[in-house]
């Protein structure tokens, strides 16, 4: 037996549970999914005193053991299933010193499950500012537990917490109150029918709709006498139970906690007066968004230029160092390195975007935006909570769609899921950036560059498309669902550097490696398709071109270029592009862009990598993608291929089209049907085609 114990971190949202997890595990953590569902599973390893290792699992935040969402039911399923490999040896309940009363509700429920239970009081650094003092000895005695007072912000008490976790065997498993008093007769009957089961566990199974160990539920349903309680009766009992628990907690805190209000300084009130103000609240929100886009655009240009030139010289270096490598050297230099360069270059921007999103979340500001936007969003059939998916959708639609789970009404949630892919995700960013830099002039107005403003406009178009289609869906969809809306307004906090840094690192890594695999594979396939072709035109290109231009006095370089481009045109990829060209010519695109669009249906970010591969196959010099694209000529109309009209058309196509297989897969999972992702794909792509067509025809 290895000396490893299972520790589960449980707590209300906004108690700093994840900070505790980060403080305990540092970089020894990984993020995955619970099997079969898309709830994020965070686990890590922590070394405890005396050589004991702890496997720590950071469970989703929940206010109680009465689950109302998939995320919350994960917590209960784990706590009720002793056979789960992650079943905790000790449950660590994380609470926030300012919301102790509410946090203890969950604590008393977990105590009733008779699992060894340790109470962590976090954010102790705020105690003095809020005038709070705790009588730890008294609380430990009343709550039948040990208490660790810590501050993740000041990094205080962490070692002591580890010590206490390692002493888990000394923790009491006695419940701290008797909740069955709410209906003694009923609970007695229940216990008599199942003498070997824990009463509170039975009660949870009866009152929950979630599925924990099907057999338990069936056993209880099989005994008819326990169906005597109607849903309404059960809910009244749950209310009684909640009141009972609060009575106990109030009594305990009356002696165990003193709050001297005269000592309390109230930053929250002052900030809320401005940040949730009827006018200033919206103005500030708008300026925060504006700053984010300006930052993404301006601050990332330096590292991006550096990455761009590094990959260009790396590709060149490979070619010069291994000149005899033939096809293999070509594949590495032109297929793989250009393809990867096309994705690595966007790391700075993606990291900045996640940096801002995680700061907004961590500081508590995001809840204020939910509050401000709810009424407006509701007009479009959305919820104020839809603002979080719509904003995180600017990073990636996949986590954004998963973030819709806390929207209570199914109709509002479905509409949010369906429209979120319109928001400008980070995979669109590479496409936008390169095209904007080609077709939008440099220059500034009021200190803001035209290019940054165009980018902001594209984000607004995405947002507008999402909201507009939500409005239509709200009229069209006939779904009746109960709506209620509760959102916690957490305290304002200065975001912890460690939390923000870990989020940025983890999300950027997921993006790069997730997308990187697809991009690498597609780059290789494209390179092969571009390097081989059927028939005389491809295989005999040298002779055909030499003869054709024999009369003209071409330099060797010019001749080589003509040959290369003739070859590309008659390669497999060229033929494919030619085949679809009639469909996309009215949008202002040539067959090369056509190929890039087709490969984008695997994932949008492939666009740039694809063009990189196609163009560097077409020529041998070290021009980077952008310069290469600027030099492309429209074969029919003459003039640059990427001009204002075709550029705008392309931008709009990418703004509306549904080009992400992973998103479709998530939508299928979350709506549990192929119907919604199919609608999404067909309708979004049709809109994209029509809008791109109209814009090119008007602007050309």
């Amino acid at each position, binding site marked *: 037996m290895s000396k490893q114990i299972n520790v589960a971190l449980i707590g209300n949202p906004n108690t700093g549970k994840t900070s505790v997890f980060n403080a305990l595990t540092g970089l020894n953590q990984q993020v995955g999914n619970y099997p079969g569902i898309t709830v994020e599973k965070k686990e890590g390893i922590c070394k405890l005193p005396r050589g004991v290792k702890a496997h720590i699992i950071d469970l989703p935040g929940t206010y109680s053991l009465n689950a109302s969402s998939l995320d919350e039911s994960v917590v209960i399923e784990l706590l009720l299933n002793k056979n789960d490999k992650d079943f905790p040896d000790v449950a660590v309940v994380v609470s926030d010193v300012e919301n102790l009363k509410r946090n203890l509700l969950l604590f008393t429920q977990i105590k009733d499950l008779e699992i060894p239970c340790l109470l962590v009081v976090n954010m102790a650094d705020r105690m003095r500012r809020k005038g709070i003092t705790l009588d730890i000895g008294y609380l430990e005695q009343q709550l039948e537990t040990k208490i660790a007072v810590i501050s993740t912000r000041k990094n205080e008490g962490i070692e002591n917490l580890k010590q206490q976790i390692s002493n888990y065997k000394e923790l009491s498993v006695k419940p701290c109150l008797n909740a069955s008093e709410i209906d003694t007769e009923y609970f007695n009957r229940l216990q008599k029918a199942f003498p070997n089961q824990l009463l509170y566990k039975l009660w949870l199974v009866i009152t929950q709709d979630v599925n924990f160990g099907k057999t338990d539920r069936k056993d209880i349903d099989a005994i008819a006498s326990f169906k005597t309680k109607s849903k309404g009766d059960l809910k009244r009992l749950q209310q009684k139970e909640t009141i009972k628990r609060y009575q106990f907690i109030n009594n305990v805190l009356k002696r165990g906690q003193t709050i001297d209000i005269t000592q309390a300084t109230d930053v929250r009130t002052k900030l809320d007066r401005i940040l949730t103000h009827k006018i200033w609240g919206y103005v500030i929100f708008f300026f925060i968004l504006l700053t984010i886009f300006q930052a993404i655009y301006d601050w990332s240009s330096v590292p991006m230029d550096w990455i761009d030139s590094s990959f260009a010289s790396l590709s060149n270096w490979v070619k010069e160092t291994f000149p005899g490598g033939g096809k293999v050297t070509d594949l590495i230099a032109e297929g793989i390195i250009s393809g990867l360069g096309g994705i690595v270059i966007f790391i700075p921007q993606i990291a900045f975007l996640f940096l801002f999103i995680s700061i907004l979340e961590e500081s508590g500001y995001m809840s204020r935006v939910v*509050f401000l936007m709810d009424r407006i969003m509701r007009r479009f059939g959305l919820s104020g909570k839809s603002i979080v998916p719509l904003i995180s959708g600017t990073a990636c639609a996949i986590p954004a769609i998963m973030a819709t789970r806390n929207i209570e009404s199914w109709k509002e949630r479905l509409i949010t899921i369906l429209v979120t892919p319109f928001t400008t995700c980070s995979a669109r960013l590479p496409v936008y950036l390169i095209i904007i830099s080609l077709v939008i002039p440099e220059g500034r107005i009021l200190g803001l560059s035209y290019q940054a403003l165009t980018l902001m406009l594209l984000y607004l178009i995405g947002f507008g498309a999402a909201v507009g289609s939500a409005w239509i869906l709200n009229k069209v969809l006939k779904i009746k669902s109960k709506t209620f809306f509760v959102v916690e307004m*957490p305290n304002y906090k200065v975001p912890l550097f460690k939390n923000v840094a870990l989020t940025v690192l983890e999300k950027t890594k997921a993006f790069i490696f997730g997308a990187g695999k697809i991009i690498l594979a597609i780059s290789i396939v494209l390179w092969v398709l571009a390097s081989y072709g059927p028939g005389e035109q491809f295989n005999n290109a040298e002779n055909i071109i030499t003869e054709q231009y024999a009369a003209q006095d071409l330099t060797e370089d010019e001749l080589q270029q003509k040959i290369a481009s003739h070859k590309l045109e008659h390669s497999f990829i060229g033929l494919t592009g030619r085949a679809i060209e009639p469909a996309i010519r009215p949008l202002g695109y040539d067959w090369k862009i056509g190929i890039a669009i087709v490969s984008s249906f695997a994932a949008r970010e492939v666009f740039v990598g694809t063009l990189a591969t196609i163009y560097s196959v077409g020529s041998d010099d070290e021009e980077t993608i952008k310069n290469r694209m600027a030099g492309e000529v429209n074969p029919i109309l003459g003039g640059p291929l990427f001009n204002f009209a075709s550029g705008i058309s392309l931008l709009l196509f990418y703004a509306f089209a549904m080009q992400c297989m992973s998103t479709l897969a998530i939508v299928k999972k979350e709506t549990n049907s192929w119907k919604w992702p199919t609608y999404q794909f067909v309708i979004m792509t049709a809109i994209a085609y029509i809008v791109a067509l109209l814009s090119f025809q008007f602007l050309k």
Partner: protein
Amino acid sequence: MQHTIVHLKRGEKGVITDVSSELIPLKLLEMGCLPGNFVELVQVAPFSDPLYLNINGSHLAIRKETAIHILIDKIDE
């Protein structure tokens, strides 16, 4: 006249007297919205909806449609 949370003005306080359990989600009760607890209206969004409340020390926002089902006694200061 029977008051509900909707009748509070910004900054005013009350004590919850009754919540209709059929119409109020359990989650709200668990966050402290129970008879006997105090409630303060911290802020209102435009069109008085949603309402930003301090209930028993928990800060949360709910919609007007929910708030009309929470009966209170106003506290005059």
